[in-house]
């Protein structure tokens, strides 16, 4: 068995360390570090539930080795919505628009939404479909998620970028 190295990851601006076998994914590492806000849906890159931001861009954490993430700033939902007194526009919009049902897809969905807005602050409905096409939701039919992203996009544009 190969040696297990202690690695340090930068998660939501903090340094967090754990012993990580080479074959450990970033998703496994994050949940091992008690980042339960990162969800596991398929471990194959098909569902988007495990999405996190790396340098502002959404990636499936199940498709990345923990070792590959060393030295890269990782942001989970926790980091995304913190420092805004609970009023991050995406969070507020998802709550107020009733976009959350079982909630399991939501962390990945919000990460993907933020990543999309980082590049395209004013997406059309079709662009939203394309931007969120990699995040499966079985409960909502996506309608209220689009509504929430539309509202959040507007607020973020007016109030400054994240």
């Amino acid at each position, binding site marked *: 068995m190969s040696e297990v190295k202690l690695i340090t990851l930068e998660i939501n601006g903090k340094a967090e360390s754990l012993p990580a076998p080479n074959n450990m994914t970033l998703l496994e590492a994050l949940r091992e570090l008690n980042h339960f806000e990162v*969800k596991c*849906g398929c471990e*194959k890159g098909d569902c988007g539930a495990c999405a996190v931001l790396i340098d502002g861009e959404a990636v499936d954490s199940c498709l990345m080795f923990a070792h590959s993430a060393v030295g890269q700033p990782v942001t989970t939902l926790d980091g995304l919505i913190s420092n805004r007194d609970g009023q991050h526009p995406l969070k507020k919009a998802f709550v107020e628009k009733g976009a959350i049902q079982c*909630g399991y897809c939501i962390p990945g969905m*919000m990460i993907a939404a933020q990543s999309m807005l980082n590049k395209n602050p004013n997406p059309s409905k079709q662009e939203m479909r394309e931007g969120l096409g990699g995040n499966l939701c*079985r409960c909502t039919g996506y309608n209220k998620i689009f509504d929430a992203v539309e509202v959040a996009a507007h607020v973020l544009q007016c109030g400054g970028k994240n």
Partner: protein
Amino acid sequence: MDVRNENFPRPRIAEKKLHQVGKPLVRTDAKGKSEGKTRYAGDYVMPNMLHAVVLRAPMASATLKRIDVSQARALPGVACILTAADISAREAATDLPGQTGRKRLETDNQILVRTRVRYHGEPLALIAAETKAIAEKARSLIEFDLEPLAGVYDPEEALKPGAPVVQSHDNIVGSHKIRKGDIEKAFADADHIVEKTYRTQFIEHAFLEPEVGLAWVDENDVVNIRVSTQVIEHFRTIAEAIGVPHNKVRILGALVGGGFGGKEDITVEVYLALLATETGRPVKMVYSREDSWFGHGKRHPFIIKYRTGVTMDGIITGSKIDIIADAGAYVFLSPYVLLYCALASPGPYRVDNLQVDSLAVATNNMFTSAFRGFGACQAAIAHEQQMDELANTIGMDRIEFRRKNYLKKGDPIATGFKVESEVWTEQCVDQAMAALGEKTPARGALKIGRGVAAYQQSYGRLTMMHDTSECWVGIEMDGTVVVRSGVTDIGAGQGSALCQIAGELLGVPLDRAVIYNSDSAVTPLAGTSTASRALYMTGMACKNAATALRERLIKRAAVELGVQTHHVDLANNRAFVVGRSEEFISLKDLLAHCARDGIHRSELVQFNAPVTGPIDPETGQGRVRPDYAYGAQAIEVAVDTDTGEVTVLKSVAAHDVGQCINRAAVEGQIEGGTAMGIGYALSEELIYKQGQLMTPSFSEYLIPTAEDTPLEHTSIILESRSGLGPFGAKGIGEPALTPVAPAVENAIADAIGTRVLDFPLTPEKILNALGDSSI
């Protein structure tokens, strides 16, 4: 009169002015989920915890000749490995517990394979280790020999004499008959007889959160199981499976990351209980997505054959319906799904001459069980296609044909029961079709089609199950509200709805109400979150509890305010005089009075559904279900006649929900059901070849993504207030899905002028149908 049936009379109008009920308020569970702080079952850890995995059979029909776990056991870090030999005679029931706890004995099932493998993925062994990686490694070291056994993979084949026997002596695990009127006369009176067979496919729930649980045995020998489940009442059957008294199993249901019926049966609980008991340590089992395909029962494929007589005037004279369901390898809830399908099979139409014969047949395919719609979905796929076919045969418009045949309030349904609530099918169909607006013009290879589907979907469980539900409502000294109920919240806002109801009645805003739910030891048992019953049953228990408490508060407030009780209302944290809102007492002050006077500030209620005896086995007549919901979906599609690809352009849903509790939640259910129905019609299919699953991933089993939903969707929510639920509510969980797939099918048939009878409607099947019909 049976005192338990006192809830039959329905309120015709709202009993009080509604302050909160009906509004799209922010749900109580929304904030936690939006922050990622909500803990699902897989987000718990305990000190000294082990991780467990399941070893599954890689083939569908086989004899287990040998299993050797010695190498696996020797791996450092492995705590426990269990095979059938280690758990000897233990069996687990697969039947849903009615409140009486009666179950059909023949539904008990081996927990781990003894000698016979009946489906691909059937568990052979359980492995618990210090880490998940070690458990997976140990699993790979287990050696076993399987000798293939002749299997049967098609229910029609399984019925033939000489077919391999999977269950029972003849593979028939359920049957149901309906006999009404005179079918032969009906055919003799008909001008046309239309005979068609409709087929539906295996469907996966595809909840985003795979099955998961964490169990530990505490100092009182209670087996605690934190688990993602729709049914905490399984503690009884789990206790029996592991051989302990009922009160020694505690289910702590977490908020569920999607259920849809797939977490209605026991999934990981018995495995966890066995491992936790054996090791004396907490054990966590998190299914991978790969496990989940094999870990819970699927939606039944159905073969539904109609022979329907119709007159040139457009009246259905009678219908003979033959139904076969693939029950897969084990019985689970197949007999009930079959029953629901049989009784839904004529659709929301008046059919006085009816003969239904139905069979649930065992095969070596994956076992099938509960799934949103529970047989009525498949029936709707069939009856709505049949309605269009009948209309086309006599040259009548599809809507007008339905209009001539709608079931009306007071008419007898398939079982002879006369529907007492409003039956607004006609209004729903008309409004849904009208809301489609102008038809999109065809262009080039794109053909445009429109379809509608109507439904009758029961809410509440079979009346012969004597269903009950409990809820406790209390108010704190500072006027905040607490609700305690066993209800499981599987994402539709079951918990928040109860808070909204209690808050309505006690005059407390929703954000000052909390619910503690889903703990079989501590919260009063509410029954399953299935069968569109949670709002009806637990909502009524909650309403009645809150009402009793409300009356006490109002009575005491009236004394303070110096008026008669009927002049007092509660809202906005106050008790006030109706029409003179400046005369009030705050709830906080009122409660201080109540406390001093020893007035009980909480109430526990059990709500009982109407009760009947068993269904007549020869005729299928009887009340059978408490009540039914009605509605429709209208769909416009574009079909690319060069490739067969379909785009859903417009979707309109129209449902009579009786009364919304939370309007946004109702819309959410409708929107989600619409997406699910589109997947059901167009892209979803679990493909089994010789019982082997060929589509074990989300890249092969295709649920609708954000790019696949209708370009435009509208929900029309009608409120007849005629339901049996709180404030006249019915149910929306299943109705939201039921009409969608048939509406899509009917739209496609309208576009291409021919019908694909076999779901799903893949581009290939559509192209083939176009090719066949153009000859």
